[in-house]
């Protein structure tokens, strides 16, 4: 029943009354709107009674694994616990019911929170100025790269390339392209860190930005970071720090102190925002003083103690990057989280995230190779190459089999530098008991009959889907039987 589509549940004529009859004198539509712009019928949406609608969606929800129900060690996504208090508080009517264009005098409480968040994020970054506007991490990357472009334009420099390590998230090169840059890949060395020789060979007067994720996607801290920053700055470039992995270093390392000129945060990761099945997130960007004038408008400023306004008059600004002011309820959750933790708490969060990851690493590497695995930060990447060779069990097989045991799979086949990669990020909110159960299960899977593992998962709502079929003949929407080709 849960897998019937809304459209298949549709029963014409069963709708509930959501809105009342009109309480003002009504006039014929055709008198008010040119008839050729009027639709003859409303869109052919499904008609589902409220009882059926509720049962449909509640049953659908139960088909998902989620942080609230399962261990979800999806590497690079920081699937930590999402505190319920933050959800409740971000949804208070005094926050949820604010129109973006109501008088600023009537949103001073909100502006106060956002302004405080700007200052907090600047402090954690070790930078001077913050914009809260970007809607997601990748949007933050784009914003920062546009800031870089504006900065160089302002200086009369024409720089065209963005250097990106080969282990970087795909968003980095994609953002570079969107911002009008050409991306150049920088190799990793045998320790999984930036190959300085390769970097040196690619740095030149065309270099606008070096984008680095630190800790990187192998879960390793880039110990050469200061040297790298100096090299980039030496050719006149800027250093951008992808903050996706900030959960490892809050209060321990500040990107600004490492030489980064700008960075973004992922509040939905680091600051415990729920991931929403894919979003919304947010992507605040922090920059050093020399880039502050280029931040997108508007910026929230304090005009007198406790008085806030929006500064739209910033001649050097890159302009607007979105409508209105930001993903407010995501930002409020981040603010609530940071206020719950305080400075010691944030540091403790990172310490425990690194502790949990290293503990799991210590347990896992005894039966699954972790090529760059002496000491990790908040995550590590194991490789199934050996077990694939010896028993024909792939990273994907392991991932699928874990589902049978009630664990969400790690990220697989990323980063690309490592074959048969399993990227495991436990986060700090999981118990030792859960980590132990996960490690035990992983070990047990490696010893299971390969056929059993190949056919996994066995206990989930569906078995492995045919992804090739999906891509070859895409069906991207439901079609009424009469209209559909194959019924």
């Amino acid at each position: 029943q849960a897998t019937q589509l809304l459209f298949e549940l549709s029963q014409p004529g069963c709708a509930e009354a959501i809105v009342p009859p009109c309480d003002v004198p009504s006039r014929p539509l055709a008198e008010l709107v040119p008839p050729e712009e009027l639709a003859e019928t409303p869109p052919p949406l499904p008609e589902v009674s409220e009882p059926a609608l509720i049962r449909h969606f509640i049953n659908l929800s139960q088909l998902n694994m989620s942080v609230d129900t399962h261990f979800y060690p999806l590497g690079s996504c920081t699937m930590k616990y999402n505190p319920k208090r933050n959800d409740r508080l971000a949804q208070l009517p005094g926050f949820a019911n604010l129109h973006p264009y109501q008088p600023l005098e009537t949103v001073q409480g909100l502006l106060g929170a956002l302004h405080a968040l700007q200052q907090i994020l600047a402090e954690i970054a070790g930078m001077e100025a913050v914009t809260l506007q970007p809607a997601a991490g990748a949007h933050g990357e784009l914003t920062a790269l546009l800031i870089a472009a504006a900065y160089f334009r302002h200086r009369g420099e024409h720089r065209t390339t963005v250097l990106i390590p080969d282990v970087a998230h795909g968003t980095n090169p994609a953002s570079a392209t969107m911002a009008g840059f050409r991306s150049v890949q920088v190799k990793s060395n045998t320790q999984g860190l930036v190959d300085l020789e390769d970097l040196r060979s690619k740095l030149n007067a065309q270099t606008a930005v070096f984008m680095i994720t630190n800790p990187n996607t192998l879960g390793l801290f880039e110990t050469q970071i200061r040297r790298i920053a100096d090299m980039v700055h030496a050719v006149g470039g800027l250093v951008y720090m992808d903050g996706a992995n900030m959960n490892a270093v809050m209060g321990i390392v500040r990107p600004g102190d490492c030489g980064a000129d700008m960075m973004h945060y992922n509040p939905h990761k680091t600051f415990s925002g729920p991931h929403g099945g894919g979003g919304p997130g947010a992507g605040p960007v922090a920059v050093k003083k020399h880039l502050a004038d280029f931040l997108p408008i508007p910026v929230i400023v304090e005009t007198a103690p406790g008085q806030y306004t929006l500064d739209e008059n910033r001649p050097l600004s890159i302009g607007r990057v979105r409508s209105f002011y930001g993903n407010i309820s995501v930002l409020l959750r981040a603010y609530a989280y940071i206020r719950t933790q305080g400075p010691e708490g944030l540091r403790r969060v990172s310490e425990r995230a690194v502790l949990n990851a290293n503990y799991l690493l210590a347990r896992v590497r005894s039966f699954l190779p972790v090529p760059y695995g002496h000491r990790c930060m908040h995550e590590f990447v194991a490789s199934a190459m050996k077990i694939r060779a010896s028993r024909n069990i792939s990273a994907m097989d392991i991932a699928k089999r874990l589902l049978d045991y009630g664990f969400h799979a790690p990220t697989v086949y990323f980063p690309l530098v490592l074959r048969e990669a399993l990227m495991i990020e436990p986060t700090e909110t999981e118990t030792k008991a859960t980590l132990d159960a996960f490690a035990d299960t992983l070990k047990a899977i490696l010893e299971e009959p390969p056929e059993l593992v190949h056919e996994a998962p066995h206990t989930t709502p569906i078995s492995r889907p045919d992804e090739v079929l999906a891509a070859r003949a895409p069906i991207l929407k439901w079609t009424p039987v009469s209209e559909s080709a194959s019924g």
Partner: protein
Amino acid sequence: MAYLPQTEQEVKAMLAAIGVQSIDELFAHLPSDVRFQGQLKIPPALSELELTQHMEDLAQRNVGTHQKVCFLGGGAYDHFIPAVVDFIASRSEFYTSYTPYQPEVSQGNLQVFFEYQTLITQLTGLDVSNASLYDGATTLAEAVLMCLSHQTGRKRVIVPQNVHPEYRAVLATYLSHVSAEIITLATPRGIIDADSLARVVNDQTACVILQQPNFFGCVEAARKISEITHAAGALLIAVVDPISLGVLRRPGDYGADIAVAEGQSLGLPLAWGGPYLGILACREAFLRRLPGRLVGQTVDRRGQRCWVLTLQTREQHIRREKATSNICTNQGLMALRATVYLAALGPHGLRAVAELCLQKAHYLRERLQREAGFQPLFNAAFFKEFAVAAESPAEVKTLLEIATDAGFFAGIPLGRWFPELANALLIAVTEKRTQAEMDRLTAILASARTRADSRAIDRKSSMTPSSQRTVQVE
């Protein structure tokens, strides 16, 4: 310190298993010159009770649309949100999961997104929809980028001045480094003048943007604009108010190639501007250029129908610098809200909401004109939003203050974006507004104008045609 379940004893056991003496030793390999010394200068930790009191205090320092009657629009609307929307969106299996990379344990999200995609195609009359983008403005920018990449060699983008000014601003930002020519088309009568449009659309034109209803609430001659656009081989991007599609023709029905919408009206809280929902649908021909995630139907090994993320080779995590867009995290939970909203309303509910907006907006405009002497700024037909002229910018300010004190957010001063319209107000009316509220607002404004011993109100629209600005970037 919160949400850290390990006890001190467990921490010790874990350190021993790792083979280190202390947590600090785990960070020993970090160079000392990048280690942060001391403590972050941020406020101290709060217990849940204190945090609650603090946030409630902040919330109470705002005045929301539950306290003032809201006639504000401009791209964000105070529509009614049925209880089922909030309820379903509060299911943590939906909101604490992430992108459905493991379809076997993500069928809930995948099916919802597939339903969302279907609903959006039904709503827009177009062939395909992605699974959401950030918001209306960035989605418009993505749509223009799609057109520019599809229309090889064509660089002109025509943007009427009555497209939401913030959307235009975002477009300018996104195109700041792209070899494109943005032509801003003046719209002195509120709507696009077909002849003016015909004059600027040419064989260099990649696309024309049409906002329907436009930023001033006016209804455009969509089919005519579509014809002019297509006659020149250009593509038409329609930016629509999804609620309006309960009564207005759908973009697909008048030939739009791409439809863009801000989804906030579909069950999303106002939340001072976000998170909202970028809706993007297009004709099949543009499928491979579509940014963002797509969910497709397939079968599992047992032959059971199911859903997966598909056509990921367009996306950044596979295609990297060659991706159609850099988008990764999208607005999944907001797409869920829109899905529930549309399903809860159904075709008749959506039509009813649209008709209520339309009828009530016309009632209010007429009352304001007749009883308070506000002249409509434009004569064009409108949907749920309309602009009226006051005597002066100062009067706009005064009237808004009086209205606020009396319990109304009465409208948005247009001078904010259009200096030449500084004496005008943009007023939106949703299905939530009652006759009583509108009558009261009318009375308050009328009395304020009388009290001010107002001289004869200038009944001519003060809008002077703005000179056609042509912005050409790099």
